[in-house]
């Protein structure tokens, strides 16, 4: 289990190699990468800034990761989330889950992303030229979260 909040970029192959080093018991690895898109609601986007809440961010990501590890049979999990100034096609977030079973790896990765979207203290401002606006939270992201609620 690991969580990193960083301004710099990440390399997926390097992260996977580090997670897999010295072990041959993993059967399935799922990765999710979130990227900055060059349009939002039809309007062109030239830049994005990710603000976060240092201190709380790491706690929130660790809590989400611990919950995923409690729910599914994971051998490895990793969350990397960037902050600061980004541009279209830049990588924003990486989630990795590894398990003996593909179902657990898929479910845990999707769970982590759904929680990250609306429960980790990040805020996106995107824009063009010297214009920028804060991205609204999407109702769809709240709905995505609701399906993980235990009955």
């Amino acid at each position: 289990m690991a969580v990193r909040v960083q301004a710099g970029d990440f390399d997926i192959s390097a992260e996977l190699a580090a997670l897999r080093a010295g072990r041959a018991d993993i059967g399935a690895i799922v990765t999710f990468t979130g990227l900055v898109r060059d349009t939002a609601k039809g309007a062109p986007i030239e830049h994005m800034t990710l603000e976060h809440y240092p201190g709380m961010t790491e706690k929130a990501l660790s809590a989400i990761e611990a919950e995923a590890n409690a729910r599914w049979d994971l051998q490895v999990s990793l969350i990397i989330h960037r902050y600061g100034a980004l541009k279209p096609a830049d990588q924003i977030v990486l989630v990795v889950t590894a398990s003996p079973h593909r179902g657990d790896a898929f479910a845990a990765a999707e769970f982590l992303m759904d929680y990250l979207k609306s429960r980790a203290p990040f805020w996106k401002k995107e824009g063009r030229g010297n214009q920028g606006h804060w991205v609204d939270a999407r109702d769809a992201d709240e709905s995505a979260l609701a399906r993980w609620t235990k009955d």
Partner: protein
Amino acid sequence: MKLDLLYFAWVRERIGEPGEQVETNATTVAELIEDLRSRAPRYEAAFSDPKAIRVALDQELSTPDALLTGVREVAFFPPMTGG
């Protein structure tokens, strides 16, 4: 009671600073918001729609009815948009 307040995203922009220390008699988050709104128009601008505001108490997500007893750091921000 003395509290460290932190503001993020458009809450920060509307209030005009990333944080401050305040003295308040509020006992809940909702009372703290009312206290701040009464202080200056920039707080009124930031907190005019309470449903658009999220709060964390000592770095844990919380709710408007939460008590401030023992709390040191209160952060206000819009709904989160990570990922």
